[in-house]
């Protein structure tokens, strides 16, 4: 009888211990889940940002923008002359790039940031907006902006530092 009671006690102890251990790990799991869930939103934003950054680089390297061989071998290089011409017929490309807006913002040398570029103020401007509307700075990446310039009658390649900003269109199937 005494032995029986002792065994029952042991079974009870074991059962309580198992419940306690299960509850403990369930709590730990919940804590981890909460931490993980809280970082999911941030990860999603970062992925969105990276996607846009890569899209910006992809656009900068597309034949309509890229320097090609005109300025030597350069990557992430935008031909300013090409882009100025492209602005006139950019509506045709809206569906092709799947973006709402593209803008090129000169970073260095830090001059005439606010001046919109056109064929007349070519070398004294700071930004070139291909389409109308606002655009966020977070969806951008660095590029080299090259053009042909002249110095005492001699042509040379002038490359400046710029950012290409894109406003990616939210696709309907996403």
């Amino acid at each position, binding site marked *: 009888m005494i032995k029986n009671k002792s065994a029952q006690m042991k079974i009870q102890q074991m059962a309580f211990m198992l419940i306690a251990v299960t509850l403990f790990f369930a709590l730990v799991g919940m*804590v981890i889940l909460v931490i993980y869930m809280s970082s999911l939103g941030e990860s999603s934003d970062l992925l969105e940002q990276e996607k846009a950054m890569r899209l910006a680089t992809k656009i900068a390297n597309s034949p309509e923008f890229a320097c090609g061989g005109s300025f030597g071998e350069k990557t*992430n290089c935008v031909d300013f002359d090409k882009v100025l011409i492209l602005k006139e017929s950019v509506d045709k490309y809206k569906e092709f790039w799947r973006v709402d807006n593209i803008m090129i913002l000169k*970073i260095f040398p830090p001059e005439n940031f606010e001046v919109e570029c056109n064929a007349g103020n070519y070398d004294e401007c700071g930004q070139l907006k291909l389409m109308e509307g606002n655009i966020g700075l977070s969806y951008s*990446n660095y*590029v*080299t902006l090259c053009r042909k310039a002249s110095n005492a009658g001699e042509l040379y390649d002038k490359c400046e530092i710029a950012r290409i900003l894109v406003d990616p269109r939210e696709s309907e199937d996403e």
Partner: protein
Amino acid sequence: MTRGKVKMNNLKVTSKKSTKAQEEMIGFALIIIIVAVILLVFLGFMLNNSDRSSVESYEVNSFLGAVMQYTTDCEDYVRGPRLVRDLVFDCYFEKECVDGRKSCDVLNQTLSEIIENDPKWQVGESSPVNGYVLNILFGEEGESQLMVLSKGILDGTKKSGAQSFSKSSGEEYTIFFETYSKNQED
């Protein structure tokens, strides 16, 4: 007398058993706590394995790529205006620009101005960046330092990028750029 002794012995046995059980419980609890702590630390590392730094490093690399291709105001008699990348080579050979300035001085000044003028890397209390360091190294293993630019406190979340390039004659150069920004929780 004998009964008393037996009772005492029984009590001692019960007490010993109870102590043993307590020790077992404490040991078990300790194991669970240790396992849980290890699990939490491991998961903490897994979750904190920052995605942001990869995005930022991509940006730092793009920045370095654009900087290397920037046309400076230092001119060469034969090849005209020099790129930052060319100035690195010129600096190594201690060449001078047409106007007499040393290529190393122009390189130093240009790089400082580029970084200082970009709001993304500006150092200050109101800026998210604590400090930066830009290193130009040469040699196959990057064993020798050509130039170093540094500003602010080199502490916080690190984002870095590097670009390697070489001259046709074979010398290898690497430019490193590291930025330290305030932690996001701050």
